[in-house]
Protein backbone atom coordinates (compact mmCIF):
# COMPACT_ATOMS: atom_id res chain seq x y z
CA UNK A 1 0.00 0.00 0.00
CA UNK A 2 1.37 3.41 -0.96
CA UNK A 3 1.63 6.16 1.63
CA UNK A 4 -1.20 8.02 -0.06
CA UNK A 5 -3.61 5.06 0.03
CA UNK A 6 -2.59 4.30 3.59
CA UNK A 7 -3.41 7.88 4.62
CA UNK A 8 -6.73 7.70 2.83
CA UNK A 9 -7.61 4.45 4.65
CA UNK A 10 -6.71 6.10 7.98
CA UNK A 11 -8.73 9.20 7.16
CA UNK A 12 -11.81 7.20 6.19
CA UNK A 13 -11.57 4.96 9.26
CA UNK A 14 -11.10 7.88 11.66
CA UNK A 15 -13.78 9.93 9.95
CA UNK A 16 -16.31 7.09 10.12
CA UNK A 17 -15.68 6.75 13.86
CA UNK A 18 -15.70 10.50 14.38
CA UNK A 19 -19.05 10.98 12.65
CA UNK A 20 -20.72 8.38 14.86
CA UNK A 21 -19.12 9.99 17.88
CA UNK A 22 -20.66 13.32 16.85
CA UNK A 23 -24.03 11.60 16.55
CA UNK A 24 -23.51 10.23 20.06
CA UNK A 25 -22.80 13.69 21.48
CA UNK A 26 -25.76 15.11 19.58
CA UNK A 27 -28.09 12.67 21.39
CA UNK A 28 -26.33 12.92 24.75
CA UNK A 29 -27.13 16.64 24.84
CA UNK A 30 -30.80 15.66 24.43
CA UNK A 31 -30.67 13.13 27.25
CA UNK A 32 -30.33 9.96 25.17
CA UNK A 33 -26.96 8.46 26.15
CA UNK A 34 -26.83 5.04 24.50
CA UNK A 35 -25.56 6.23 21.09
CA UNK A 36 -22.68 8.04 22.83
CA UNK A 37 -21.87 5.08 25.08
CA UNK A 38 -21.75 2.76 22.04
CA UNK A 39 -19.60 5.18 20.04
CA UNK A 40 -17.22 5.65 23.00
CA UNK A 41 -16.91 1.90 23.57
CA UNK A 42 -16.02 1.35 19.93
CA UNK A 43 -13.50 4.22 19.92
CA UNK A 44 -11.99 2.95 23.16
CA UNK A 45 -11.59 -0.55 21.71
CA UNK A 46 -9.80 0.91 18.71
CA UNK A 47 -7.55 2.98 20.95
CA UNK A 48 -6.68 0.13 23.29
CA UNK A 49 -5.91 -2.22 20.42
CA UNK A 50 -4.14 0.25 18.19
CA UNK A 51 -0.86 -1.66 18.35
CA UNK A 52 -2.28 -5.20 18.20
CA UNK A 53 -2.55 -6.06 14.54
CA UNK A 54 -4.74 -9.13 14.91
CA UNK A 55 -7.26 -7.47 17.22
CA UNK A 56 -7.30 -4.34 15.10
CA UNK A 57 -8.01 -6.43 12.03
CA UNK A 58 -11.04 -8.00 13.72
CA UNK A 59 -12.19 -4.63 15.04
CA UNK A 60 -12.06 -2.98 11.62
CA UNK A 61 -13.91 -5.95 10.14
CA UNK A 62 -16.67 -5.66 12.76
CA UNK A 63 -16.82 -1.88 12.43
CA UNK A 64 -17.05 -2.11 8.63
CA UNK A 65 -19.81 -4.70 8.93
CA UNK A 66 -21.72 -2.47 11.35
CA UNK A 67 -21.48 0.43 8.90
CA UNK A 68 -22.70 -1.80 6.07
CA UNK A 69 -25.65 -3.04 8.14
CA UNK A 70 -26.46 0.52 9.24
CA UNK A 71 -26.45 1.76 5.64
CA UNK A 72 -28.43 -1.19 4.30
CA UNK A 73 -31.07 -0.83 7.00
CA UNK A 74 -31.51 2.86 6.21
CA UNK A 75 -31.67 2.16 2.49
CA UNK A 76 -34.14 -0.67 2.97
CA UNK A 77 -36.52 1.37 5.13
CA UNK A 78 -36.24 4.41 2.85
CA UNK A 79 -36.89 2.33 -0.27
CA UNK A 80 -39.80 0.44 1.26
CA UNK A 81 -41.38 3.74 2.21
CA UNK A 82 -40.86 5.26 -1.22
CA UNK A 83 -42.16 2.37 -3.28
CA UNK A 84 -44.56 0.70 -0.94
CA UNK A 85 -47.20 2.07 1.37
CA UNK A 86 -46.12 5.12 3.37
CA UNK A 87 -44.64 3.42 6.41
CA UNK A 88 -42.94 6.20 8.25
CA UNK A 89 -43.58 9.38 10.09
CA UNK A 90 -42.51 12.61 8.40
CA UNK A 91 -39.36 12.81 10.46
CA UNK A 92 -38.07 9.41 9.36
CA UNK A 93 -39.02 10.16 5.79
CA UNK A 94 -37.04 13.41 5.98
CA UNK A 95 -34.02 11.49 7.23
CA UNK A 96 -34.28 8.63 4.79
CA UNK A 97 -35.36 10.59 1.73
CA UNK A 98 -33.12 11.38 -1.23
CA UNK A 99 -30.33 13.08 0.76
CA UNK A 100 -30.56 10.45 3.48
CA UNK A 101 -30.29 7.68 0.90
CA UNK A 102 -27.22 9.34 -0.64
CA UNK A 103 -25.61 9.47 2.80
CA UNK A 104 -26.49 5.79 3.32
CA UNK A 105 -24.99 4.92 -0.05
CA UNK A 106 -21.78 6.77 0.77
CA UNK A 107 -21.50 4.95 4.08
CA UNK A 108 -22.16 1.68 2.29
CA UNK A 109 -19.19 2.44 0.03
CA UNK A 110 -17.14 3.39 3.11
CA UNK A 111 -18.15 0.13 4.81
CA UNK A 112 -17.08 -1.96 1.82
CA UNK A 113 -13.90 0.09 1.43
CA UNK A 114 -12.89 -0.61 5.04
CA UNK A 115 -13.99 -4.24 4.84
CA UNK A 116 -11.89 -5.03 1.76
CA UNK A 117 -9.46 -7.70 2.96
CA UNK A 118 -6.54 -6.78 0.68
CA UNK A 119 -6.76 -3.09 1.54
CA UNK A 120 -7.14 -3.83 5.26
CA UNK A 121 -4.19 -6.20 5.39
CA UNK A 122 -1.99 -3.76 3.47
CA UNK A 123 -2.93 -0.95 5.84
CA UNK A 124 -2.21 -3.09 8.89
CA UNK A 125 1.19 -4.02 7.53
Amino acid at each position, binding site marked *: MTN*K*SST*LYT*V*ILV*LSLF*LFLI*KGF*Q*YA*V*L*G*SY*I*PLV*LALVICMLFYLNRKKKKALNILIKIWALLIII*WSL*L*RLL*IGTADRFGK*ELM*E*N*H*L*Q*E*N*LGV*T*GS*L*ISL*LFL*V*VGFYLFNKKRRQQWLN
Partner: protein
Amino acid sequence: MKLNLTFILLILFFGCKNQEDINLSIENLPSKTIDAQREIVSVLTGNKKLSTDYTINSRTTPKERLMTRRYLSEALNQLNLKTLEHDYREPNSNVFIDLLVSPFKGTNLYTIIPSTIESDEYVLLGAHYDTARNCPGANDNASAMALLYGVAKKISNVPVRQKNVMIVFFDQEEEDLVGSRAFAKYLKKKDYKIHSVHTFDQIGWDKDLDKAVEIELATKKLEEIYREKASELQIPIHTTKVNSTDHQSFRELGYNALGITEEFANGDTTPFKDTPKDTFDTVDFEYLESTTNLVFEVINHIVTQN
Protein backbone atom coordinates in the same frame (compact mmCIF):
# COMPACT_ATOMS: atom_id res chain seq x y z
CA MET B 1 -10.43 11.05 -6.62
CA LYS B 2 -10.19 9.52 -3.12
CA LEU B 3 -9.83 12.92 -1.56
CA ASN B 4 -12.89 14.09 -3.49
CA LEU B 5 -14.86 11.24 -1.95
CA THR B 6 -13.93 12.45 1.54
CA PHE B 7 -15.01 15.97 0.68
CA ILE B 8 -18.35 14.82 -0.78
CA LEU B 9 -18.94 12.77 2.37
CA LEU B 10 -18.26 15.75 4.60
CA ILE B 11 -20.39 18.12 2.54
CA LEU B 12 -23.31 15.71 2.53
CA PHE B 13 -23.07 15.06 6.24
CA PHE B 14 -22.82 18.65 7.35
CA GLY B 15 -24.15 20.63 4.44
CA CYS B 16 -27.69 19.42 4.04
CA LYS B 17 -29.28 22.29 5.92
CA ASN B 18 -30.53 24.71 3.34
CA GLN B 19 -33.41 26.37 5.11
CA GLU B 20 -33.40 29.80 3.65
CA ASP B 21 -34.84 32.61 5.69
CA ILE B 22 -37.82 33.68 3.69
CA ASN B 23 -39.45 37.03 4.12
CA LEU B 24 -43.02 37.01 3.10
CA SER B 25 -45.55 39.75 2.89
CA ILE B 26 -49.19 38.87 2.56
CA GLU B 27 -52.25 40.85 1.59
CA ASN B 28 -54.23 42.39 4.42
CA LEU B 29 -56.61 39.83 5.86
CA PRO B 30 -60.33 40.73 5.70
CA SER B 31 -61.56 42.72 8.68
CA LYS B 32 -64.49 40.38 9.34
CA THR B 33 -63.18 37.48 11.43
CA ILE B 34 -64.95 34.67 9.58
CA ASP B 35 -63.69 35.99 6.23
CA ALA B 36 -60.15 36.21 7.60
CA GLN B 37 -60.46 32.65 8.90
CA ARG B 38 -61.67 31.46 5.50
CA GLU B 39 -58.67 33.18 3.90
CA ILE B 40 -56.26 31.59 6.39
CA VAL B 41 -57.60 28.08 5.84
CA SER B 42 -57.57 28.67 2.10
CA VAL B 43 -53.88 29.63 2.03
CA LEU B 44 -52.75 27.01 4.56
CA THR B 45 -54.36 24.20 2.56
CA GLY B 46 -53.13 25.18 -0.87
CA ASN B 47 -56.58 26.27 -2.02
CA LYS B 48 -55.05 29.69 -2.60
CA LYS B 49 -51.44 30.46 -3.47
CA LEU B 50 -49.28 31.81 -0.66
CA SER B 51 -47.25 33.90 -3.06
CA THR B 52 -46.84 34.06 -6.80
CA ASP B 53 -44.49 31.11 -6.78
CA TYR B 54 -45.45 29.06 -3.75
CA THR B 55 -48.45 27.01 -2.66
CA ILE B 56 -48.66 25.21 0.68
CA ASN B 57 -49.96 21.82 -0.43
CA SER B 58 -49.37 20.17 2.91
CA ARG B 59 -47.43 21.14 6.04
CA THR B 60 -45.04 18.25 6.28
CA THR B 61 -41.56 19.05 4.99
CA PRO B 62 -39.26 21.57 6.70
CA LYS B 63 -39.86 24.04 3.83
CA GLU B 64 -43.65 23.68 4.01
CA ARG B 65 -43.58 24.13 7.77
CA LEU B 66 -41.30 27.14 7.46
CA MET B 67 -43.65 28.77 4.96
CA THR B 68 -46.58 28.03 7.26
CA ARG B 69 -44.83 29.74 10.15
CA ARG B 70 -43.98 32.74 7.99
CA TYR B 71 -47.60 33.05 6.93
CA LEU B 72 -48.96 32.72 10.48
CA SER B 73 -46.39 35.21 11.66
CA GLU B 74 -47.51 37.72 9.03
CA ALA B 75 -51.17 37.14 9.90
CA LEU B 76 -50.49 37.81 13.59
CA ASN B 77 -48.35 40.84 12.75
CA GLN B 78 -51.45 42.31 11.16
CA LEU B 79 -53.02 42.18 14.63
CA ASN B 80 -49.93 44.00 15.95
CA LEU B 81 -48.75 40.82 17.63
CA LYS B 82 -45.07 39.99 17.48
CA THR B 83 -44.26 36.31 17.07
CA LEU B 84 -41.41 34.35 18.60
CA GLU B 85 -39.94 31.03 17.59
CA HIS B 86 -39.11 28.19 19.94
CA ASP B 87 -36.60 25.88 18.26
CA TYR B 88 -36.11 22.45 19.73
CA ARG B 89 -34.39 19.12 19.19
CA GLU B 90 -35.78 15.95 20.71
CA PRO B 91 -34.60 12.33 20.67
CA ASN B 92 -36.64 9.67 18.87
CA SER B 93 -39.10 7.44 20.64
CA ASN B 94 -36.55 4.64 20.97
CA VAL B 95 -32.80 4.30 20.97
CA PHE B 96 -32.73 2.01 17.95
CA ILE B 97 -34.18 4.83 15.84
CA ASP B 98 -31.70 7.24 17.47
CA LEU B 99 -28.90 5.09 16.07
CA LEU B 100 -30.36 5.19 12.57
CA VAL B 101 -31.44 8.81 12.11
CA SER B 102 -31.04 12.34 13.44
CA PRO B 103 -33.05 13.78 16.32
CA PHE B 104 -36.38 15.50 15.77
CA LYS B 105 -35.86 19.12 14.87
CA GLY B 106 -38.70 21.58 14.85
CA THR B 107 -39.99 25.04 15.67
CA ASN B 108 -43.01 26.13 17.64
CA LEU B 109 -44.34 29.58 16.88
CA TYR B 110 -45.91 31.69 19.59
CA THR B 111 -47.09 35.14 20.48
CA ILE B 112 -48.13 36.79 23.71
CA ILE B 113 -51.10 39.07 24.15
CA PRO B 114 -50.02 40.91 27.27
CA SER B 115 -52.30 41.62 30.18
CA THR B 116 -53.37 45.25 30.56
CA ILE B 117 -52.86 45.00 34.32
CA GLU B 118 -49.48 43.69 35.41
CA SER B 119 -49.56 39.91 35.74
CA ASP B 120 -47.16 36.98 35.52
CA GLU B 121 -49.95 34.51 34.82
CA TYR B 122 -50.60 33.05 31.37
CA VAL B 123 -53.51 31.33 29.69
CA LEU B 124 -52.14 29.20 26.88
CA LEU B 125 -54.08 28.47 23.69
CA GLY B 126 -52.45 26.09 21.22
CA ALA B 127 -52.96 24.21 17.99
CA HIS B 128 -50.59 22.19 15.85
CA TYR B 129 -49.71 23.39 12.38
CA ASP B 130 -48.17 20.30 10.80
CA THR B 131 -50.04 17.71 8.77
CA ALA B 132 -49.73 14.09 7.81
CA ARG B 133 -47.90 13.51 4.52
CA ASN B 134 -49.67 14.52 1.30
CA CYS B 135 -52.56 15.91 3.27
CA PRO B 136 -53.77 19.53 2.93
CA GLY B 137 -54.91 19.36 6.55
CA ALA B 138 -57.88 21.70 6.30
CA ASN B 139 -59.78 20.23 9.20
CA ASP B 140 -56.66 18.82 10.84
CA ASN B 141 -55.54 21.43 11.71
CA ALA B 142 -55.88 24.63 9.64
CA SER B 143 -59.35 25.00 11.16
CA ALA B 144 -57.88 25.27 14.67
CA MET B 145 -55.16 27.68 13.53
CA ALA B 146 -57.89 29.89 12.09
CA LEU B 147 -59.76 29.60 15.39
CA LEU B 148 -56.68 30.79 17.26
CA TYR B 149 -56.35 33.75 14.90
CA GLY B 150 -60.01 34.65 15.53
CA VAL B 151 -59.68 34.36 19.31
CA ALA B 152 -56.41 36.32 19.30
CA LYS B 153 -58.07 39.10 17.34
CA LYS B 154 -61.03 39.31 19.72
CA ILE B 155 -58.95 39.02 22.89
CA SER B 156 -56.60 41.78 21.72
CA ASN B 157 -59.59 44.09 21.71
CA VAL B 158 -60.66 43.32 25.28
CA PRO B 159 -59.90 46.56 27.18
CA VAL B 160 -59.01 45.06 30.56
CA ARG B 161 -57.07 41.81 30.74
CA GLN B 162 -55.81 40.52 34.06
CA LYS B 163 -53.81 37.66 32.57
CA ASN B 164 -51.47 37.26 29.64
CA VAL B 165 -52.64 35.08 26.77
CA MET B 166 -50.08 32.95 24.99
CA ILE B 167 -51.03 31.71 21.51
CA VAL B 168 -48.88 28.78 20.34
CA PHE B 169 -48.69 26.91 17.05
CA PHE B 170 -47.08 23.54 17.69
CA ASP B 171 -44.85 21.72 15.28
CA GLN B 172 -44.81 17.92 14.80
CA GLU B 173 -48.02 16.91 16.58
CA GLU B 174 -48.49 14.18 13.99
CA GLU B 175 -45.28 12.60 15.27
CA ASP B 176 -46.05 11.70 18.83
CA LEU B 177 -46.72 15.29 19.96
CA VAL B 178 -43.04 16.19 19.73
CA GLY B 179 -43.58 19.96 19.36
CA SER B 180 -45.99 20.39 22.26
CA ARG B 181 -43.90 18.14 24.51
CA ALA B 182 -40.88 20.34 23.80
CA PHE B 183 -42.92 23.47 24.47
CA ALA B 184 -44.30 22.13 27.75
CA LYS B 185 -40.73 21.37 28.87
CA TYR B 186 -39.67 24.86 27.81
CA LEU B 187 -42.44 26.44 29.93
CA LYS B 188 -41.43 24.32 32.89
CA LYS B 189 -37.77 25.24 32.47
CA LYS B 190 -38.57 28.94 32.22
CA ASP B 191 -40.92 28.64 35.18
CA TYR B 192 -43.89 30.25 33.46
CA LYS B 193 -46.94 30.55 35.69
CA ILE B 194 -49.65 28.89 33.63
CA HIS B 195 -53.30 29.28 34.60
CA SER B 196 -54.57 26.76 32.07
CA VAL B 197 -53.76 25.21 28.71
CA HIS B 198 -56.43 24.90 26.00
CA THR B 199 -55.43 23.02 22.85
CA PHE B 200 -57.53 22.79 19.71
CA ASP B 201 -57.56 20.06 17.11
CA GLN B 202 -60.07 19.64 14.26
CA ILE B 203 -62.65 22.39 14.49
CA GLY B 204 -64.18 22.25 11.01
CA TRP B 205 -66.74 19.46 10.75
CA ASP B 206 -70.38 19.57 11.86
CA LYS B 207 -72.45 17.37 9.61
CA ASP B 208 -75.44 17.22 11.99
CA LEU B 209 -75.38 21.04 12.25
CA ASP B 210 -75.81 21.03 16.02
CA LYS B 211 -72.67 23.18 16.65
CA ALA B 212 -71.63 20.79 19.39
CA VAL B 213 -68.07 20.60 20.67
CA GLU B 214 -66.24 18.08 22.78
CA ILE B 215 -63.96 19.05 25.63
CA GLU B 216 -61.32 16.53 26.52
CA LEU B 217 -60.20 15.82 30.09
CA ALA B 218 -61.13 19.20 31.52
CA THR B 219 -60.83 19.87 35.22
CA LYS B 220 -64.14 20.50 36.97
CA LYS B 221 -63.60 24.24 37.14
CA LEU B 222 -62.71 24.62 33.47
CA GLU B 223 -65.59 22.36 32.47
CA GLU B 224 -67.97 24.60 34.42
CA ILE B 225 -66.77 27.70 32.57
CA TYR B 226 -67.10 26.01 29.20
CA ARG B 227 -70.57 24.72 30.09
CA GLU B 228 -71.73 28.12 31.32
CA LYS B 229 -70.55 29.95 28.19
CA ALA B 230 -71.79 27.20 25.86
CA SER B 231 -75.18 27.37 27.49
CA GLU B 232 -75.33 31.14 26.91
CA LEU B 233 -74.50 30.56 23.24
CA GLN B 234 -76.76 27.50 23.01
CA ILE B 235 -73.91 25.23 22.03
CA PRO B 236 -74.09 21.60 23.18
CA ILE B 237 -71.00 20.42 25.06
CA HIS B 238 -69.82 16.85 25.51
CA THR B 239 -66.97 15.75 27.72
CA THR B 240 -64.65 12.95 26.68
CA LYS B 241 -61.45 11.33 27.84
CA VAL B 242 -59.57 11.54 24.53
CA ASN B 243 -55.94 12.32 25.23
CA SER B 244 -54.25 11.68 21.91
CA THR B 245 -53.41 15.27 21.11
CA ASP B 246 -51.35 18.21 22.34
CA HIS B 247 -53.04 18.82 25.72
CA GLN B 248 -51.62 15.47 26.83
CA SER B 249 -48.07 16.91 26.68
CA PHE B 250 -48.99 19.57 29.24
CA ARG B 251 -50.95 17.28 31.50
CA GLU B 252 -47.91 15.01 31.70
CA LEU B 253 -45.99 17.89 33.26
CA GLY B 254 -48.75 18.75 35.71
CA TYR B 255 -50.43 21.64 33.90
CA ASN B 256 -54.17 22.23 34.00
CA ALA B 257 -54.85 21.32 30.39
CA LEU B 258 -57.78 20.36 28.21
CA GLY B 259 -58.53 19.75 24.55
CA ILE B 260 -61.33 21.14 22.43
CA THR B 261 -62.49 19.47 19.24
CA GLU B 262 -65.46 18.75 16.99
CA GLU B 263 -67.50 15.68 17.95
CA PHE B 264 -64.55 13.35 17.51
CA ALA B 265 -65.64 10.71 20.01
CA ASN B 266 -69.32 11.05 19.09
CA GLY B 267 -68.56 10.34 15.45
CA ASP B 268 -69.56 13.69 13.89
CA THR B 269 -66.00 14.18 12.70
CA THR B 270 -64.27 14.46 9.35
CA PRO B 271 -63.92 11.16 7.51
CA PHE B 272 -60.94 12.64 5.64
CA LYS B 273 -58.47 12.93 8.51
CA ASP B 274 -54.87 12.41 7.36
CA THR B 275 -55.89 11.93 3.72
CA PRO B 276 -55.53 14.08 0.58
CA LYS B 277 -59.30 14.71 0.83
CA ASP B 278 -58.99 16.86 3.97
CA THR B 279 -59.48 19.94 1.79
CA PHE B 280 -60.64 23.54 2.17
CA ASP B 281 -64.14 22.85 0.80
CA THR B 282 -64.88 20.33 3.57
CA VAL B 283 -64.55 22.93 6.34
CA ASP B 284 -67.75 24.23 7.89
CA PHE B 285 -66.91 27.88 8.54
CA GLU B 286 -70.12 28.63 10.40
CA TYR B 287 -69.20 25.91 12.86
CA LEU B 288 -65.68 27.34 13.09
CA GLU B 289 -67.17 30.77 13.80
CA SER B 290 -69.50 29.40 16.45
CA THR B 291 -66.64 27.55 18.20
CA THR B 292 -64.43 30.62 17.95
CA ASN B 293 -67.11 32.63 19.74
CA LEU B 294 -67.40 30.01 22.46
CA VAL B 295 -63.65 29.89 23.04
CA PHE B 296 -63.43 33.66 23.06
CA GLU B 297 -66.18 33.88 25.70
CA VAL B 298 -64.39 31.30 27.87
CA ILE B 299 -60.98 32.95 27.57
CA ASN B 300 -62.47 36.38 28.03
CA HIS B 301 -64.08 35.14 31.24
CA ILE B 302 -60.77 33.71 32.48
CA VAL B 303 -58.65 36.75 31.67
CA THR B 304 -61.09 39.27 33.03
CA GLN B 305 -61.53 37.45 36.36
CA ASN B 306 -59.10 38.11 39.14
